[in-house]
């Protein structure tokens, strides 16, 4: 008998051969000596934790969950997943009020959008910021993203829903909390672009927050519930309505595809390939000759593109940059691969502020040197971080496309 052919480890962490390249690529390690780095926190620590839970190290909370370690790993070890799973299994501290406020993006959003002007003004006031800094440990340097008056969903139903069926082809749009509560304009831009390309845009039967903030703040039960609802809605869209699902947020898209099965145990293998980022969806249509883009004359912009960490993990940065390069008059620079430091709610927490800014510094410096007209990025939290730290405006590639396209001519071309 040849046992060797059979005995191959299917324990992902055992595929680590300790080359340590993950730790070299970790953005936290150089700026926070308290963090042991992905190798020690991940595959190394896992063996000790399997021995006894008491070897769980509280410092795992410093992990950004940026997944850069996984991108770097030549052995295919899901290091970030190992670390997050350990936090899920062993962390005994229950989430603080602050973490609950930060993590429940859809609950907070649905309340705040009703009284947006008051909330926006209040959250922007210095004394309020100081109080939040002291009492809730939300760093006073941070500016909360503004809430919009009324949600994207409401606007959609009132203004565009009725004619979406008239297009020849269809997609579902996972808008996410940012588009719904903070920045409906991005959703409007997506609908303009997709409609011009001949696609009707539909909402999912039910959409909940993707849950990324719930996961990083330890609210796993709620994250699982959301994942169940979203995956089921996506399944209906794909199989009952024959509509693939697109998103404008790299993190939401990544979470729906990979974090659900890896961290939350919600199976999605039957729909995973039908969930993608709008830029990739559009680029592929162009590539296959299925749609044509007609641009406005005289559009000019010097753009610096920042690849969000989860976009690196998806490996899809190239679709956004190549799509932008198709716009005549765009001078595009892809910024060096660096984490901006915000990592969703991480950077909002007082204890992480310094680390967060130190991680982002090389990125901010490069943007400062380049002096672009604005920055492009597929992630909303990177947007807040870059806007706050550099003063440059950050736009989603879909919004840039909406600006640069001659929508009427494009519609004609795709009839």
């Amino acid at each position: 008998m040849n046992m060797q052919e059979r005995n191959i480890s299917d324990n992902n962490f055992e595929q680590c051969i300790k080359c340590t390249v993950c730790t070299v690529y970790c953005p936290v390690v150089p700026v926070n000596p308290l963090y042991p780095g992905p190798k020690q926190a991940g595959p190394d620590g896992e063996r000790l934790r399997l021995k006894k839970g008491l070897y769980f190290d509280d410092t795992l909370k410093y992990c950004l969950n940026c997944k850069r370690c996984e991108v770097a790993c030549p052995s295919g070890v899901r290091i970030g997943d190992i670390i997050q799973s350990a936090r899920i299994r062993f962390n005994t501290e229950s989430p603080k009020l602050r973490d609950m406020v930060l993590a429940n993006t859809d609950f907070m959003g649905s309340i705040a959008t009703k009284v947006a002007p008051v909330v926006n003004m209040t959250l922007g006031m210095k004394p309020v910021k100081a109080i939040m800094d002291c009492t809730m440990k939300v760093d006073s340097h941070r500016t909360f993203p503004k809430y919009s008056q009324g949600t994207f969903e409401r606007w959609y139903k009132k203004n565009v829903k009725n004619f979406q069926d008239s297009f020849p082809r269809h997609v579902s749009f996972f808008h996410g909390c940012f588009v719904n509560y903070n920045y409906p304009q991005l959703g409007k831009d997506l609908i303009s672009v997709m409609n011009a390309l001949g696609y009707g845009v539909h909402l999912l039967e039910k959409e909940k927050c993707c849950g990324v903030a719930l996961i990083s703040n330890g609210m796993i039960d709620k994250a699982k519930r959301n994942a169940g609802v979203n995956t089921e809605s996506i399944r209906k869209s794909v199989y009952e309505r024959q509509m693939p699902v697109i998103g404008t947020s790299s993190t939401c898209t990544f979470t729906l595809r990979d974090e659900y099965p890896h961290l939350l145990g919600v199976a999605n293998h039957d729909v995973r390939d039908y969930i993608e980022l709008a830029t990739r969806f559009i680029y592929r249509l162009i590539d296959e000759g299925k749609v044509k883009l007609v641009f406005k004359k005289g559009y000019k912009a010097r753009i610096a593109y920042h690849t969000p960490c989860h976009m690196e993990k998806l490996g899809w940065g190239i679709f956004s940059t190549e799509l932008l390069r198709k716009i005549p008059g765009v001078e595009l620079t892809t910024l060096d691969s660096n984490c901006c430091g915000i990592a969703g709610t991480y950077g909002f927490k007082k204890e992480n502020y310094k680390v967060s800014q130190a991680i982002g510094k090389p990125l901010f410096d490069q943007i400062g040197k380049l002096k672009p007209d604005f920055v492009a990025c597929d992630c909303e939290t990177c947007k807040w971080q870059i806007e706050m730290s550099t003063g440059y405006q950050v736009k989603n590639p879909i919004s840039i496309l909406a600006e640069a396209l001659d929508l009427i001519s494009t519609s004609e071309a795709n009839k």
Partner: protein
Amino acid sequence: MGHLKKDNEFDVIIVGGGITGAGTARDCALRGLKVLLIERHDLATGATGRNHGLLHSGARYAVTDRESAEECIKENMILRKIARHCVEETEGLFITLPEDDLEYQAKFVESCLAAGIRADVIDPKEALLMEPSANPDLIGAVKVPDGAVDPFRLTSANVIDAKLHGATVLVYHEVESLIKDGDTIKGVKVFDHTTKQTKEYYAPITVNAGGIWGQHIAQLAGARINMFPAKGALLIFGHRVNNVVINRCRKPANADILVPGDTICLIGTTSSRVPFEEVDNMYVTADEVDLLLQEGEKLAPKLASTRILRAYAGVRPLVATDDDPSGRNISRGIVLLDHETRDGIKGFISITGGKLMTYRLMAEWATDLVCRKLNVDKACETMEIPLPGSEKENIDEISKKTWSKPGTPHKAVVGRHGNRAGQISMSSEYDASLVCECESASVGEVRYAIEELDVHNLVDLRRRTRVGMGTCQGELCACRAAGMLAEAHKCTETAKQDLQSFINERWKGMYPVCWGDTLRESEYSQWIYSGVCGLTGEGSTEKI
């Protein structure tokens, strides 16, 4: 013994730094004797360090060997008290598989109870809840008080206590001959492998605790002990698959015990007679690996897809019974030989047979005899007094008491050294940084081991701290540790040679199981050491 002695004069000389010798040295020292312990290699290099690390409940012996079973359960309960930081109270299961005879279970339970071993028949479903990795096809399960014990730690703790009570410990000192005066053994002539000098030490009693090599020591005294070396091979897996010891409920056979030990788990053993000439050169064959895996999977199917770190083999020191002139019958339990009454050789006794589990009892018997011969009237206390490091608290309590914010490396240190972790410096960033990342061994811990725990080389260091025992098998830690040894011993050349032999020693264990990720890792290690570091030994044709 109050009166003044010269530096090379002792009350008792103990030959052999395995657990028996270490335990005897401790017991003798606790009874006030001036003790010398001599070991030709490092502590725990023989059978002591080459077994399952199973804290036997005795259940395994209950059916066939009641006496051993009774000794085991008594010592099991004592070790839980006195050696807390060496012992893990995991519990054990004896599972019956469809191919096994379920009737054996009744006999087994009855024998356990008769020997004083708690044995609860539990529902197979309950057994799977207790240990989810156990074979789900099981048709019967019995819960027994098995556990895990770290033999290196246990030996080291006994040596520490012996030294705290005045004992002298000389490792890398090999007995060349026994000093005789007529029919009396007066002492030993030893060769110091470090300084290459020969020295003489004197004592009225010499205790032979040489394990399998005790046959040779007895020969030097002019006595004959017949040993039957029985080789047992084991496989170490990359992580813990089980947290409860899993045994097969059948007559003892190959590969029917899976023990969780520290960060790994191990399956064993095989059993085959080997000629005495081969006891210093044990290797594991491909057939043994196949057999261990094949049988191991039946205990825990997950083993089939778990990375194997290494394979190793030990030699059971089985002793022929004195009452059998053919020398073929094996004595099961502890063998204490007073060579004065047996062979007419005064001042010389042998303590052998037995098991890791019964080392303390063996030491007690040997020490009682030593004391009788020396007219010392002091009772044994080793069943009551905790070993150094095992004084009371658990890992969490000690960690919190010692450091304000204990992380994984701090807790790992406490896990290995118990209460003595307080002596290990982890305060500076350098001291807290890791030498061995797989097992979380810090610079402070390595320094403590070099300074306090008789560490001469990297292999010794591995036994005290687990440096090099993790998944990478020395890939990242060996060169760091070699650097620290070079500094401590002020010799780079020796450290370099040591590094090479350590890497080769690790390779020897990986070779029989070198496929899959273990193969990738060993290739990467080779690339680091021979490709990047340029470590190529002259005269060495072995692949590192």
